[in-house]
């Protein structure tokens, strides 16, 4: 946790976390979850902070190049997925399948 604290406090420029009056700000609950997942995985020593920072910087660079308006935590979660897949913790197929399952759930909810 301490290493993560330090890393978060020094994430600057494009990869700096959105904040308000010094506090991290989350626009929606999922953003806080996405943040918590990344920090918790680091805490469990499943990857190093700088690996995630590098991944996030790459995502942001790509998105900016493509004029992709996706918000900060959308880019965050895309980066986290890439890192998790690269590390072999989960496969892309598993993630896609699970996401599709939840998406179908939402569609059903909308039909009611």
């Amino acid at each position, binding site marked *: 946790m301490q290493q993560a604290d330090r890393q978060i406090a020094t994430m600057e420029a494009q990869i700096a976390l959105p*904040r308000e009056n010094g*506090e991290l700000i989350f626009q929606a609950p*999922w953003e806080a979850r996405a943040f918590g997942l990344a920090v918790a*995985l680091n805490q469990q020593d499943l990857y190093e902070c700088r690996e995630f920072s590098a991944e996030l910087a790459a995502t942001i660079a790509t998105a900016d190049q493509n004029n992709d308006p996706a918000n900060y935590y959308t880019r965050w979660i895309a980066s986290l*997925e890439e890192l998790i897949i690269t590390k072999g913790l989960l496969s892309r197929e598993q993630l896609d399948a699970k996401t599709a*399952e939840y998406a179908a759930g939402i569609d059903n909810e909308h039909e009611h």
Partner: protein
Amino acid sequence: MNNSRESVHTETDAALRTRALESLLVEKGLLTTDIIDEVVQKYEQDVGPLNGAKVVARAWSDPNYKRRLLANGTAAIAELGFGDAHGSKIVVLENTASVHHVVVCTLCSCYPWSVLGLPPSWYKSYAYRSRVVREPRVVLREFDLELSDSVEIRVWDSNSDLRYMVLPERPANTEDHSEKQLVSLVTRDSMIGVAKIEAPAK
């Protein structure tokens, strides 16, 4: 095969993918929901200027605590259960009607995050770091803090072993405030020294 960098576009996608990621990681036993909850809670509540505000409110309410705080910031802050796990010392500087302290880290962005949370982006900007030392009065004016010429301004340069925190002046109209009420008045900027605390309306 899609790359996540290019396939996650909308926030709905991102929210779903976050949920999927969490549930798969938990299923696989790599994380537990409790661990994630704990992290989120810590960042939402525990680390933030709130810890510093509690220190300030205690110092305003308890003269003995204030004395200890100014004599040994690290120890007095630890009394309230806060502290810097990296072992850097915290020195607390008292702002008064005649002396105004302001904190900077000219080299990088050393900051007493255990009491003040994450540093604001301007604190890390080259402009602030270079100018506040040279022309503090002008910089403070840009923060809407106008100090009379009779007030002495002292600029303190933090480093990795020594972090500074400002004890702001207690505002007027707060004689009847409880310690808890006082906490809510204290702002992050006042503990860096780039703002004063406004007196609440009577």
